[in-house]
């Protein structure tokens, strides 16, 4: 037979992958530049199926990229810009070394820059794609906007991030698309529904950061570079979709005009404008000043059966959403200075409420504490000096809970100095068998429109319910062990018999007694269940090895879940019991 000898690793998967170092050499980039390029272009490594084949027989841990990805990077114009920048740096160094200051100046002026527009367009061919991927961008921009303007990154980046986040918040307010808010120990989570996409972002609490040492800020800065571009374009598109002016302008004839006198406090006009925007208290100017946009009515399509039900459900949901959007409409809030102003103002404005604060806290306050029409004053301190009679003094958690419950919750639990009810995560959707905290049940009851009558009673009922659930669970477990139990019963019977035998053998004059036999009630349902369980067990025995493994794994997971739920329930019960005991003691 003729032909060339086949060589190893010259076809197949070995040729589809390329190691990171080789890719870097092919692109003629330094490692930081390669990293930046990968971040900007969204190239990530791939894990080959057969690592040894790809690695040419070696098992050394290596990072592999798809060769096609690297080829795709070859045509990227930004690679050229990276090289230009490298040359620029070299020239600059030389000029410095020769102390040619004019040359330095000239070089500085012609510092090569690049734009990421085409990359955004390429990575996100459609607007929806971009929206889907905007979570991380928002989180990052919100984080960078809280950085101090010294050190870790360029001031311009921080300012840009701040501007973009303010624009984003203003858009969310204008479109009223906020859905859920969650106060976590990490920060405040927000979830908005923009064009049908659920977008979640987290904002850290307003504290200065102590910057960790083991974080590479260059990587973060590169990501931020990309994200600011993306967020800017998305904001532009979103603003234009709402007929808002971009960059945002405050509505000059809005009913809630920020007070003019506070303007003098700011040195620069440009700064004060962003500050006013970020105050979030005024509405934005529109391109077409339409008074009220008519909501497009959903056309009713004739439908039958299941579709009908679905339609109804959807309609109901829509209605609920509409109601949620107008949650705080007509309410007038006043924020005390100790509450997180930006977050609260954002939330209140998202749901149509009016909000103001002390004018020394921030620019853009619209009315004073003395305003008689204020309905709620948000306060987070144990006591307050002068109280107005015609308003509620409540803690900030009330607002967030209301948003998550989609209704105005009773304010009693949130009054000044009252121990707050637990704050639950709105993102948890309990499935069947999961543990549901009793607070959530209560909230669901409120949502259904049930009035909380006597709280204690309800508590008891709930407890009963819980117990019932537990019992059911126990029963289930019993079913699993039912067979064994039967055996145990038999064993016990046998033991009894044996005992009797022994007794008989010991003394022959056994005082025999005939006791009326008890009718063994055969629980038909139970028998049937047992039979079924037995059948199942036998069928499980016949499973193939692979399937058995999978089945065992699934069942293990399920059991663990049940166990965890039970554990939580038990913990709760213990806690409640101890609380009750304490209460009783206190009463005595």
């Amino acid at each position, binding site marked *: 037979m003729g032909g060339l000898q086949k060589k190893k690793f010259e076809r197949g998967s070995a040729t589809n992958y390329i190691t990171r170092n080789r890719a870097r050499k092919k692109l003629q980039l330094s490692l930081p530049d390669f990293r930046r390029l990968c971040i900007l272009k969204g190239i990530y490594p791939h894990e080959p199926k057969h690592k040894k084949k790809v690695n040419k027989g070696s098992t050394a841990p290596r990072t592999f990229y798809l060769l096609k990805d690297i080829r795709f990077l070859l045509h990227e114009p930004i690679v050229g810009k990276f090289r230009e920048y490298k040359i620029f740096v070299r020239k600059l160094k030389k000029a410095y070394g020769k102390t040619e200051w004019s040359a330095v100046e000239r070089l500085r002026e012609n510092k090569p820059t690049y734009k990421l527009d085409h990359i955004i*367009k390429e990575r996100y061919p459609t607007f929806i794609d971009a929206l889907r991927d905007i*979570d991380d961008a928002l989180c990052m921009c919100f984080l960078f906007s809280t950085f101090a303007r010294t050190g870790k990154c360029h001031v311009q980046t921080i300012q*840009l991030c701040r501007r973009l986040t303010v624009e984003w918040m203003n858009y969310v307010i204008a479109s009223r698309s906020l859905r859920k808010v969650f106060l976590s120990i990490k920060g405040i989570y927000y979830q908005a529904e923009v064009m049908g996409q659920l977008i979640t972002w987290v904002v850290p609490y307003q504290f200065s950061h*102590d910057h960790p040492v083991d974080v590479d800020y260059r990587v*973060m800065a590169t990501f931020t570079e990309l994200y600011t571009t993306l967020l800017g374009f998305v904001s532009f598109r979103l603003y234009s979709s709402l007929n808002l002016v971009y960059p945002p302008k405050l509505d000059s004839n809005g009913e809630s005009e920020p007070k003019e006198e506070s303007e003098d406090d700011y040195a620069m006009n440009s700064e004060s404008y962003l500050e006013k925007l970020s105050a979030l208290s005024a509405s934005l100017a529109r391109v077409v000043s339409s008074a009220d946009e008519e909501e497009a009515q959903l056309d009713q399509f004739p439908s039958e059966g299941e579709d009908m039900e679905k339609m109804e459900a959807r309609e109901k949901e829509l209605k609920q959403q509409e109601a949620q959007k107008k949650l705080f409409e007509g309410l007038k809030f006043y924020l005390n200075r100790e509450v997180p102003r930006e977050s609260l103002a954002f939330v209140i404005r998202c749901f149509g409420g009016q909000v103001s604060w002390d004018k020394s806290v921030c620019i853009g306050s619209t009315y004073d504490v003395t305003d008689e029409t204020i309905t709620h004053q948000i306060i987070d301190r144990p006591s307050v000096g002068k109280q107005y009679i015609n308003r509620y003094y409540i803690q900030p958690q009330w607002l967030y809970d209301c948003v998550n419950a989609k209704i105005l919750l009773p304010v009693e639990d949130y009054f000044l100095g009252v121990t707050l009810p637990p704050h639950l995560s709105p993102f948890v959707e309990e499935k069947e068998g999961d543990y549901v905290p009793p607070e959530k049940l209560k909230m669901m009851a409120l949502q259904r429109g049930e009035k909380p009558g006597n709280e204690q009673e309800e508590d008891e009922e709930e407890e009963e319910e819980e117990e019932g659930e537990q019992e059911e669970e126990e029963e289930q477990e019993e079913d699993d062990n039912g067979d064994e139990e039967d055996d145990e019963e038999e064993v016990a019977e046998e033991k009894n018999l044996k005992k009797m035998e022994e007794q008989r053998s010991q003394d022959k004059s056994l005082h025999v007694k005939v006791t009326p036999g008890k009718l063994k009630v055969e629980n038909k349902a139970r028998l049937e269940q047992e039979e079924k369980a037995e059948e199942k067990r*036998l069928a499980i*025995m016949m499973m193939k090895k692979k399937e058995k493994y999978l089945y065992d794994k699934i069942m293990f997971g399920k059991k663990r879940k049940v166990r965890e739920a039970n554990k939580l329930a038990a*913990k709760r019960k213990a806690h409640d019991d101890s609380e009750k005991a304490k209460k009783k003691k206190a009463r005595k």
Partner: protein
Amino acid sequence: MKKAGGKTALKRSKEEDEEQNQIFNFNRKPADEDKDDDLSDSEDSVYSGLEDSGSDSEEEEGSDDDEEEGSDDNDDKMKEKKEGEVSEEKKKHEYEHDSSDEEDIRNTVGNIPMEWYKDFPHIGYNLDGKKIYKPIRNKDELDDFLDKMENPEYWRTVHDKQTGSDVVLSDDQVELVNRLQRGQFGDVNFNECEPMVEFFSSDVMIHPVTNRPADKRSFIPSLTEKEKVSKLVHAIKMGWIKPRRVEDDGRGRYYNLWASEDSSILARHKMHLPAPKIPLPGHHESYNPPPEYLFTDEERALWEQQDPADRKLPFVPRKYSSLRQVPAFSQFIHERFERCLDLYLCPRQRKMRVNVNPEDLIPQLPKPKDLQPFPTTRSLVYRGHSGLVRSISVSPSGQWLASGSDDGSVRFWEVCSSRCMKTVQVGGAVKSVAWNPNPSVCLLAVALDSVVLILSPSLADKQVILSSERLLSAQQEGEEPAEGNGSVVWSEAEGEELNQGLRLKIQHPKAVHQVVWHAKGDYLASVMPDNTSHLQVYIHQLSRRRSQNPFSRNKGLVQCISFHPIRPYFFVATQRSIRIYNLVKQEMTKKLQTNSKWISSMAVHPGGDHVICGSYDCKLSWFDLDLSTKPYKMLRHHKKAVRGVAYHRLYPLFASASDDGSVIVCHGTVYNDLLQNPLIVPVKVLRGHVMTHDLGVLDVTFHPTQPWVFSSGADATICLFT
């Protein structure tokens, strides 16, 4: 004057002078008298020298009148001096401007150590070249002291080293010294704070400061400039210098990027996997979670002990009573950074999450109910043995059950009543019992130690008993002892043993493990497991009392054997495989691979085409001989070693007994149609034996006609499940 740097300096100089004087005095004592007359002259000259000294001359002149008024003693001298020196002053006029600190010119010796003159009467030469004589002095310390005490001018007297004379300072001079010591200007009238007169002022003067004519180079174009410009021009031409870029900040300028949304998706994007989103926070993460989500002390300790990678939650749930108490989260930047790393460093892969309903995984089998009859409950227990019951066997009629136990007895039970009909003490742990399958005879083979016993339990009709006796006695007439195998010895039982029903003894060379009958009932085979020789299996013919060893080679440790129920085949199970031999052709026809570690037992389907085989590694394998030499099905029902397996003769049932104390009865239908595979369904798990010494059920066998199963256990009982 120059030496007046300070009071201390002054004093020091005085002292020095005094010293010098002393020296002088010492040396010059004889010359003292000579010098006395010259005193006035020398004084005069010295004084004049002082007056003329350098820079101070002007001041002296300026304050002349003061001096005259203040100094009474020197008045006349001064006058003299002045008169005498007018001419001199005129001569010196050209040096008037010279304000340099020139050397003292009263004495022209220069700046030399004055000791050099200590041996001479003079101390140097004046300007005229005349000797300056040392003052004739005989001042000693006492004189000095007296001088100090008495002379009121002592404090202002200065010794001049150059001339060797004492000079009394005038008031002006003292004043001057004081001023200089205070750091003031020497001139009293000098105003140090006078307004500066600017040389170059803002006023344009009529006359130029300098009257230099302009250079030529200011009229002609500069060559260096030209060179520089040409360099720049060249650089611009070559494109090295670019015009200043128009400052357009591309950042922060946005437009409708998706104006023309074409749905042409790049090929890359088909492959692209969007990064998974960050999981949403649960109740744990709340700043005010429900109490059950908080850690107890144990959980917290556990959390702290765990490796950060193993922790279920990356943080400890905390509860704050109000929002204002919530601190910053220290790991916030870390988490973001981790996410960034994940985004660009993690390989992405589409993981197919098996989203199957576990119920769907369970195979759909026919319901056990539809597969009845099969044994379901334990109905009878046969008690009587005192050791493990190793082996049981049912008579072909189904009326009797024989069992062999470690207590050295073989018992015969009536199946229906669980009554022990007969007990035969055989004197050794019984390894195996087997009832002759031929219904027309009633014989039992028992294996113990190295003997196989043939028992005639006489539990049947007389006719049957007669026929079995006839079978046993048939060969007595032939009387052909097996010569070929001297190792196996046939002998007849006698005496007491005969009464017990013992008929024949077949003595083997080694311990017998198992004994089985051929279906016809004339042949029986015994196993003596031994790894070292080929003498492991014997086949005995009862009617001719002959034994033979069918194998000439050792193929492994034989575990168990079995006859084919219909055809002349013989199954031999070694440790890991089953070999099937054709007894007629005397060759191996098949070798079955069991895929198990150690075979324990084997049973052949009454049809003859299927074999089941149990092993010590908990497996039960079903072989379809027509299909393959590999197991058709491996059943892993048991948790522990499988000890015994059995087929039912009539019903499609088989059972397996295991060390975990259970007997599992399975339904195994075998179809005549070759295309259809056997249907195997486990139908019942039977439990009834108690675990003793880690052993559970040791043997299992079916009733020949009824769907009943017997099992013998390590707890010395036999159970009947119906």
